């Protein structure tokens, strides 16, 4: 256990990772130890150094004592800024925050949490990952969270890649940076297409057609609440008078109990197009308060409604392996 930790923060391990591009996600809280904080001058830092050399030559040539003083003061400033920049990044704790599912094509908002347990403020911590950037400050002994919007291209799990955390505070002459890869992933749903909701199938086998007297149009009675019932259909007034939570039943409901079936889609549709269509239907059905179920070649989600049901359907679609 201890050896692992030592290994993990050793330069040899860093080198190994760098050479073999093995950037494994790190679970838990990532500690930016001094060994994994790198520091080099920025372009401006290099030109600052060049300027100092010119100033030194000028001072020598003209025997300017105060020229030496100025040059050396600025050199001292440059050297001290190395320490300040390093200190601004080292010994931070980075952990994974939350990330909500998104649809393919949108940006997944990865939230990272910085914890500054030190007795001084950290400023201008810049994050970069695959072209997305974000910035935050972490005051002394406080947490700060920063959201990194990453473009979600494909459905499925979007693993957070290696994030570069860098800072140029305070002078911009030095850049301290470190790589972190908290173990976090976002669920990416298939991108819904723009198809309309299909007509309900009049499926003879299921038999639960018009006769059951349930629909969404006309109120037809009450029955005890079931976990899958939409909150919108709860009869709050009636429930207050009875001991049970009651759900309103509507006539014609059977007409809108929908099964979204993979096999019912046109045969020439691609897998992704099918998933997009199904995702679209799930969204529309949920929007209209319908009860719907999902049939995929390898999975089936029974009839239901509500946010949790929608998420479950979309997750099946997102993780579908064709």
């Amino acid at each position, binding site marked *: 256990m201890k050896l692992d930790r030592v290994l993990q923060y050793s330069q040899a391990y860093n080198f190994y990772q760098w050479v073999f591009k093995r950037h494994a996600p790190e679970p838990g809280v990532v500690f930016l130890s001094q060994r994994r904080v790198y520091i080099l001058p920025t372009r401006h830092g290099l030109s*600052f150094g060049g300027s100092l050399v010119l100033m030194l030559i000028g001072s*020598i*040539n*003209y025997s300017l004592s*105060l020229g030496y003083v100025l040059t050396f003061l600025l050199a*001292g400033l440059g050297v*001290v800024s190395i320490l300040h920049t390093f200190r601004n990044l080292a010994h931070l704790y980075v952990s994974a925050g939350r990330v909500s599912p998104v649809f393919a094509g949108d940006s997944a908002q990865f939230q990272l949490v910085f914890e500054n347990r*030190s007795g001084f403020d950290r*400023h201008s911590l810049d994050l970069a990952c695959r072209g997305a950037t974000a910035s935050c400050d972490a005051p002394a002994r406080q947490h700060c969270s920063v959201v990194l919007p990453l473009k979600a291209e494909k459905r499925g799990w979007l693993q957070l890649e290696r994030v570069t955390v860098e800072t140029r505070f305070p002078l*911009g002459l030095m850049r301290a940076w470190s790589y972190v890869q908290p173990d976090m992933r976002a669920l990416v749903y298939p991108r819904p297409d723009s198809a309309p909701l299909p007509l309900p199938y009049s499926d003879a086998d299921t038999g639960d057609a018009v006769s059951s007297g349930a629909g969404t149009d006309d109120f037809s009675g009450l029955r005890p609440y079931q976990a899958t019932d939409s909150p919108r259909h709860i009869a709050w007034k009636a429930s207050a008078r009875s001991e049970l939570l009651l759900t309103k039943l509507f006539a014609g409901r059977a007409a809108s109990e929908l099964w979204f079936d993979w096999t019912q889609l046109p045969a020439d549709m691609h897998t992704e197009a099918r998933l997009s269509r199904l995702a679209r239907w799930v969204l529309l059905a949920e929007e209209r308060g319908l009860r719907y179920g999902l049939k995929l070649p390898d999975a089936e989600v029974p009839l239901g409604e509500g946010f949790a049901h929608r998420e479950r359907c979309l997750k099946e679609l997102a993780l579908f392996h064709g």
Partner: protein
Amino acid sequence: MADPRSADALPLAPLVALVAGATLTVAPHALWLPWWVDATAAILLGWRAALALRSRALPARWLLLLLTLASVIGVFFSYRTIMGRDPGVTLLVLLLFLKLMETRLRRDVFVVAFLVYFVALSNFFYSQSIPIAGLMLLTVFITTATLVGFSAPQRPVMDDVKTAGRMLLQAGPVMLLLFFLFPRVQGPLWGMPQDAYTGMTGLSETMSPGSISGLSLSDSIAFRVKFDGATPPRGQLYWRGPVLSDFDGTTWRVGLPQLRQDTRIGVEGAPVDYEVTLEPHNRNWMFALEMPTSLPPSARVTTEYQVISLTPVRSRIRYEMRSYPNFSATSGAEPADLALALRFPRVFNRRAQGLAREWRDSSGDNAAIVRRAVEFFRSSRFEYTLTPPLLGANSVDEFLFSTKQGFCEHFASSFVLLMRAAGVPARVVTGYQGGDTNPVDGYMVVRQADAHAWAEVWLAENGWTRVDPTAAAIPVRVELGITAARPGGAALPLLMRTSSDWLKALRNNWEALANQWNQWVLGYNPDRQREMLSWLGVQQPSWQTMTVMLFWSVAGVLLLIALWLLRGIRREDAVQRAWLRFCEKLARADLARALPEGPLDYAGRIAGRLPAREAAVRAIAALYVDLRYGPRADPHSVARMQQLVREFRP
């Protein structure tokens, strides 16, 4: 994304500070820069401010290029060149302000900051005084705070100022080490521009008494003297400078200097030992009390007893000297020398020549003639003035017999002419007379206003003998200094007026400070560095040794600064430390806390596993939760928790 051309791409407060820093850096240059440069800078400044305040777009690049080209051409027409120190600095100033006109990105901010640093350095070409140093420190401070402001835009300005101040304070020790230990090389590294040394004041190689109607007294310092023993009386303080022996009727000139090793001086009495710190004056001569018997390194003495440096004095130098106030100077008395000391144009100043012939005929020897002449000056009611009337071709006649108003040059010039006309070899010696001892640090200060001219005559029995006709005519000039000789103090520089005691005390303190500044900051050269290192016990260090010393001392200082900076980096509060220690003790007993396990759950699990320790475990967890998440940390509870953890054995 905002239009990158718009002026508000950068935060306003640091931008204002950046412009302020740039303006402050350029301010000392404004006094000597060509007027059109000052005007251009002011216009650009106003333009930039207007654009920033109204968030308007900055001018187009082609316009700025045009302006830059115009600036270069303007500088060329002002100086007839764009090379050299003054044109270079002028261009730098113009570039700085033009760059401000296109400061829209962070990259531009850095360029401006570096230009400000260069301009700050260029100020030291013209003055290295304490006020200028203070001003430049202020501009560096402002510019640094600006850089901090741009790298953390959301912070209050005061925080940026504090960060910049702290960083400069930490840079201070590094600067001191580098300043004192960096291996010093005596400049210049290559040929200096022609105009590098303009503006240094000092004595001139020529003297035309009749052509000056107003002598401006400058209280700038010529040199400082530290006497080893007692200060000689004022009447002996003749600081010998250029000797003028060639006269064409209106102008005295320096004769051809002849360097000889065998300068003869007969001395008696006690010597005076002293150290001179000479301000740069861009000439070769060095000053010494009459008559010097030792020579500073890299200096020679002429047959006219003039100490000459082998290179022009272009930086402040220090040298030890020994002089004898009682001497007989017998060198430079070859027949050719004496003949030179008798030459004068006979067509001018007929009346003076007649008077001299009269003395010649009625006196027995040269000494008697000199006595007659001194008596003449003493009794003729001359008036000492710094604003004498202009004189014509017969300048000596006019001065001696009609105007009778003049300063030391008039007296010395006419006295030497009278001597030559009477057949006594004579010459004019210029230099300084007197000097004020600063009671604060004991240094004697000799100013440009103490410049003086006197005469030297050749007497066979005594060699070259000093005669000061000014002292004969106006005794207070030498006894009390120029301040007393002047009727009314209006023309004197402020600091030389003696009326106010507190002003004098202020001046003395200030000059003592300036002297320390000169000795230790400005005068810190390769010699001083060797001196200081040998005082530290390092004899004759090579540059390698010095580099090693520098490296380790800077590394040591940086380590201390790093320790100071990083002292708070691991600070976890006492409660957390105690809790972690508790968890560690349990982890060693294979009862590590699972990641998602809260403190109370963990304690419950441990209590189940270690029934004997249940009370302690639960107490620790309860205290931890209370201290960590409760409303207020009670110091007693913290101590209690620490004690429980310390005593805990799983």
